[in-house]
């Protein structure tokens, strides 16, 4: 199902104005072991439920934002510009 994303700069817009940037991940620290890099590079939670993800508003303000979305119904719960603090995941996998 197609859906809309409430861009904090431009307001609610079609998802097709945005480029999907994948799940929000935490980059391993310098010197992390191979296992950490393997998980960061390849493994995904692929949540069937609520997950936090990156979107780039390419046909709008051209800024990267984060959205909290239910991947079962494509319902976007909220979207915001990350404030610099590492925002890993607001998803519970339940709801």
């Amino acid at each position, binding site marked *: *199902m*197609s859906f809309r994303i409430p861009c904090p700069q431009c307001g609610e817009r*079609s*998802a*097709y104005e945005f*480029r*999907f940037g*994948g*799940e929000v991940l935490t980059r391993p620290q310098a010197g992390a072991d*191979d296992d950490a890099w*393997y*998980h960061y*590079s*390849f*493994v*995904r939670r*692929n949540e*069937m439920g609520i*997950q936090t*993800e990156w979107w780039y508003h390419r046909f709008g303000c051209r800024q990267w934002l984060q959205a909290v979305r239910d*991947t*079962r*119904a*494509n319902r976007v719960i909220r979207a915001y510009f990350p404030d610099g603090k590492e925002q890993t995941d607001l998803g519970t996998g339940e709801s």
Partner: protein
Amino acid sequence: MQLFSNGQMWRSHELKPSYDVAIVGAGVHGLATAYYLGRLFGIRKIALLDKGYLGYGASGRNTAILRSNYRTPEGVRFYNAALKLYEGLSAELEWNLMFSQCGHLTLGHTDTAVAGLRVRAETNQLLGVDSRIIGPDEIQKLVPHIDCSSAPRYPIMAALYHPPGGIIRHDAVVWGLARACDRMGIEIHTRTEVTGFRVSGRKVESVITNRGEVAADTVVNATAGWASTICKMAGVSMPIVSHPLQACVTEPLKPFLNAVIVSASLHVYVNQTGRGELVIGSEIDPYQSYSMKGTLPTLEQMASSALELFPQLHHIRVLRQWAGICDMTPDFAPIIGRCEELDNFQVDVGWGTYGFKAAPAAGRYLAEAIATGKTPDIIAPFAPDRFRRRQLVGEKAAAAVSH
């Protein structure tokens, strides 16, 4: 050969407390695995567990295209084994799968696309796969109605022609395999949703379903779309993201297209079924999702791309549009074999947009791996630990457009 079905193709059963093999997912991959376990290795105490009905998932949502003109030697060898098995499957199952080897054309509209097709043609030929580059004249002869002029925005420059490719009736494949499994005493349990696994140490002891718990010596995850969800239940993480893939079918027309047409540049593929309908498929949706609802932007894209190739279809109506969920892997190749974390948990997952055409080979060689405990060479490159070893099988050039 039995011309008319007299009775049920497969039966329902009560769940038994234990089986030799429990297979999660009774789609074409799960069925093929069970079929070859029973036929080649005499393992028949098998339960296939599926949350829906047969053909509900990717086995009934794909565009029924078969081909083996892949990019990597590992991929070409593997998909060609599948194509060869499909060629003999109607006779083997005594069930007409309506396999039409009408030929498969991958169009190149740019110099770089044609260069990519050339690499594939060379790799294919080295491995004995019938595949070659043809120019617009030959394309026009094979497909008289395609627009090979300079009028389109991206004129057709060349095509990778793969004569053994074609289309098959995907429901028939599922039904034929299900009937053959049933005749061997293999149990098919539909409406049986797996909700968890009982894991002890490095072993899956049993599978928990909405109809009760079953113990099994070997557990196979042969699901598509929900492969990572099922793996998660066993505590296994996967390098998979699930994207919807959409397709549509038009009203029937007189036969005019006797080849599968694919354009990677236009992100579209078109074939005409035995009933005359045009099946048009798209690229995967550009975001992760488990929703199987179609979208208007994708329908518009499929229609406009198909019209670039066949402008005379502008007045044709679309009958249906649908979506299936594709488990995409980082290298566009599947993940087959025993999981690193568990000793008796086999996966046959990560089938992205290319699972249907691979099913007989995946089932045949995974069955061998289960029966003998040794991984056959042909599926070894697709082992689950290849990402950890950084030995990827880069198949994107031949699999990124979902045909």
